[in-house]
Structure formats: C-alpha cells, structure tokens
C-alpha cells in the first residue's frame, strides 16, 4: 500500500502565520510583562515536548507489545516525536529566563533559606542547564535511531529491523521513564521549591503519555478527514477510544491520589500547593482540569456507539488536549502570575508553538511513506477487526 502525505501549501502558510503571531506575542510579552512571557514559554515548551515524549512512549509501547492494530499508524507517532529537536532548542532559550519562573534561580535566594541551600546542590542554574541538554540528547538520540530502523525496514524488509526496533523500544522506555521523571521535577515541581509530592513525576509522566497518545490519535483522525488512511475502520476507532478512556481513568486516579493524600495528611508544607489553587482566581480552572481530562472522556467514551464515531473521538481528543493546557496552566501560573490575568500573550504563545509543531510534524510526515511498507504486522492492521 503506497500512500504519501503531501504538505499542503495552505497549511504551511497558516503554520508560518501562527509562528509569526507567536513571535509577536512573545516580543510584546517580554516588553510588557516578562514574567508572564517566560511562564508561557515554559508552559508551551512543556506542553509540546511532553506530547512528543508521550508519543515516543506510545510508539515504543506498540513495538514491545507487538501490537498489530496500530502498525499502519506508526509514522504519525514518529512524526510527533520529530518535534523534539525544535523543542530542545526552545528549551535552551529558557535558561536565560530562569529567574523569572523559578524562585530558586534568584540570586541569593538560598542564602537565608535553609531548605533552598540544602537543595541547591541539585537546583542550581549550571546543573539545571546540563540536565536539559542531557534529557534532550538522550530523547533525540533514541528517536532518531528508532526512526532510522523504521525507514530501513521500509527499504529492505525482513524481520531484523523489527526485532531491533523492539529491543531499542525497551531501551527507550527505560530512558524516558528515568529522564522524564527528573525532567518533570526540574521543570514543573521546582516552581514551588519548598513543596514536594512523591507522586508528582509519575502523574506528569502518565499525563504526558495520555496527552501524547491523544495528540497522535487526533492527527490520525485529521489525516483521515483529509483523505489519508482509507483503511481506518470502526475497530481502529474503538481501540483509539479505549486508549483515551483507559488513560483518562489513570489520569483521574493519579490526580485524586495526589490530592487525597495531601488533603488527608494536612501538613501545611504540602497543602500550600492546593491551598493556592483552591482560592478564587484558580478554583474554577482547577476543577476544569479534572472535568476535561477525566469526566468528559470517561463519560462520553464509555458507551459503544460514541466510541466508534470518528467525530466524537476527534472532539473528545480536542477536549482532552485543552484539558492538558489547563492542567499545565494551573500548575505553572499560580506561582508566577497569581492574578490569573489570562490574555493575548497566552493565546499568541500557544499559536506560535502550534505553528512550529505543525511545521515539524508535517515535514517529517511528508518525508516518508505514510504507511510503513514492510512492517510485519501491517496486514493485521489493514484488516483489523474484533
């Protein structure tokens, strides 16, 4: 089956326009309200990088489970992962604005603060920057290697490349598990340097996996709307919605786990995180997060009929991704911008990153055959039925 994605020039132009809007928003933001602009840079960086990492995890999971049903869609996750180099460069920009986001990065913050000086062995700007480099090097290396194996499989066929991919997927999962744990502690949890939650990085990881898969599913459905993936049938759709459904439960479970334990323990050091988010400007968003990420997919995708409907799954995926933005917003901004003055910077910054993301993903998609040619399970995917 030969199918190639061609990058429509309309999409390319609108993506470039989005990038320009983003640039303008950032320039205006850095002049008018630098704290908020840096916060948005972190938010959108984390949003798209974690989606790429989640997609990388999703892809590796399909390999090690030897999943047949998703074999035809592998190129989409590969394309999402290819955003990582762009995300890495933008993350390095963040190093120049650490003081605007992280309290521990202020000069002299640790002097009169016993806890911060204790943590300063780990939380200091040089080591923080080195860690960013390390994470991205590992992720990009794994992504490029897996992509190379996949393309070689297209050319030469045979089981060798699949077996190699399977092995390196295991390596990739270990790499992601360790690095992403630290990455989420570094980038999100250290915004509140006095607060800690032992389940935080696990929740961030599950959330990245959840929203990464949702984004991959969203792209597959959009491509299907544009006329690609003609073999996509109800069984594929049902599997996609099962993925979202299952991960929404995991997300809700972890969200509630972190909340209940802190609520029950009632230690001021820990409850401060929720106390901040439980007061007026944040309270609504705090609940919107769990409603969008858990209640909506859980209730909508539970019955059989809507979970086999393309439009319904597409809309649910959009809701879930909006929920991710809200989740990150309520995680990052209460410390940076307590008044919650949501405005044009937020919209423009997201638009800019979305434009870059579209450019990176669509370019990679158009470079190789949209459907892998010699994947051993491809036939099972094309006739998927249960």
């Amino acid at each position, binding site marked *: 089956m030969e199918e190639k994605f061609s990058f429509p020039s309309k999409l390319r132009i609108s993506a470039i326009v989005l990038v320009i809007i983003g640039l303008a928003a950032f320039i205006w933001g850095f002049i008018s309200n630098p704290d908020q602009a840096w916060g948005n840079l972190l938010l959108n960086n984390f949003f798209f990088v974690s989606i790429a990492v989640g997609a990388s995890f999703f892809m590796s999971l399909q390999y090690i489970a030897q999943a047949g049903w998703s074999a035809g869609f592998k190129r989409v996750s590969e394309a999402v992962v290819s955003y990582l180099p762009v995300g890495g460069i933008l993350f390095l920009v963040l190093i120049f604005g650490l003081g605007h986001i992280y309290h521990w990065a202020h000069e002299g913050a640790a002097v009169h603060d016993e806890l911060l000086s204790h943590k300063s062995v780990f939380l200091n700007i040089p080591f923080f920057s080195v860690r960013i480099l390390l994470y991205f090097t590992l992720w990009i290396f794994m992504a490029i290697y897996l992509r190379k194996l996949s393309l070689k499989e297209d050319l030469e066929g045979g089981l060798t490349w699949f077996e190699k991919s399977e092995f390196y997927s295991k390596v990739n999962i270990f790499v992601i598990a360790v690095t992403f744990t630290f990455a989420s502690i570094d980038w999100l949890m250290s915004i509140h340097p006095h607060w800690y939650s032992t389940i935080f990085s696990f929740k961030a990881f599950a959330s990245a996996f959840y929203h990464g898969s949702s984004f991959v599913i969203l792209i597959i459905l959009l491509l299907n709307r544009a006329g690609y993936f003609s073999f996509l049938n109800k069984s594929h759709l049902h599997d996609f919605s099962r993925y979202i459904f299952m991960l929404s439960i995991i997300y809700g479970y972890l969200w509630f786990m972190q909340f*209940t334990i802190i*609520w*029950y323990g009632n230690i001021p050091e820990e409850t401060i995180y929720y106390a901040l988010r439980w007061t007026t400007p944040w309270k609504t968003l705090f609940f919107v997060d769990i409603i969008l990420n858990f209640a909506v997919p859980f209730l909508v995708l*539970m019955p059989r009929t809507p979970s086999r409907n393309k439009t319904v799954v597409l809309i649910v995926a959009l809701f879930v991704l909006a929920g991710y933005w809200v989740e990150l917003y309520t995680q990052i901004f209460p410390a940076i911008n307590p008044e919650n003055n949501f405005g044009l910077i937020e919209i423009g910054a997201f638009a800019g990153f979305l434009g870059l993301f579209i450019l990176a993903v669509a370019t990679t998609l158009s470079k190789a055959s949209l459907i892998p040619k010699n994947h051993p399970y491809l036939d099972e995917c094309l006739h998927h039925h249960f």
Partner: protein
Amino acid sequence: MEKQAYIVGVYDDEEPLVNAAKKFKEEGVKIHDVYTPYPIHEIFEIQEVKSRLSIAAYIYGWIGGLGILAFMQYAAVLSWPLNYGGKPVNSFPSFILVTLVFTILFVTIMSLTTFIGRAQIFPGKTIDIIDPRTTDDKFVFVFPQEGTDRKKVEELLKSTGASEIYDR
C-alpha cells in the same frame, strides 16, 4: 425435562462457521442457536444478538455509586457526626475511595446475579448439552425440527462445509 428435537450441524473450524452463518442469513434461514468452544464475536454481529447486560451494569453503577455516597452521607454526617482529627464532617474526598471500590463490587455482584437469573443457572441443575464436543473442538449450529425447512437446511449445511449432520 423433555428434550426438544433438533437438527444439529457440526463444523470443524471457525472460518467455515462464520461464512456459513453469513450464507444462512442471506438465504433467510434462522439459526436457532450456535455453540462454540470459545466466543466468536462475528457470530453475534451476524445473528444480530445484542446483550443488554451492559445496560444493566451501567444502571447498577449509578445505583451503587449514588447509594453508597448517600449511605456515607447519612452515616457520617446526619446520623453520627464524629470529629476525626479536625476534618469536616462531610469529608467528600475520603468518601470517594469507598465509592469507587463499592461501585465496582456492587456492579460485579449484581451483574453476575442478573446473568445467573436470566440464564436460569442454579446449583444442581442438569444442563442439556447439545453436543459435548462443543466444549472441545467442534462448532455447532442448532435448528429445531419443528417449523424448519429440513431439506433446505441440510442442503445449506452441506454446501457450506458441515462435516456432520444429525438429529437428536
């Protein structure tokens, strides 16, 4: 219990069985029942049999969830308010854990009860197994002898690859 008289068609594999079911549907011959060693979902689709058990389970979920929440509200807030470490009496987050676990238990037990009730299974019941080999490696179609066009059924069974046709 008097045994009903049946025509039984035996197949050796899943694939001819599924194709045969499609063929019977095209010809407009109703298959009374199908027995297979393992569930075959295509048969459900072809036969247009739908289970309402999932709807029952959904309703049980609501009953169980709301019921246990109401009970905890009654027990911990209305009937016997106690002060546990200064927590509010109506400690909603701690109710959720019990709600989750109880709902699962309630749905499981009630669905099982409903299934047993509908299938009329009880300890000591003698079950009339049409063909004991369906628990091993054979796939079986069953037609009642009364009200079936015998000739047509046998012809269709043979043409679709049934390995054996017998009366019982």
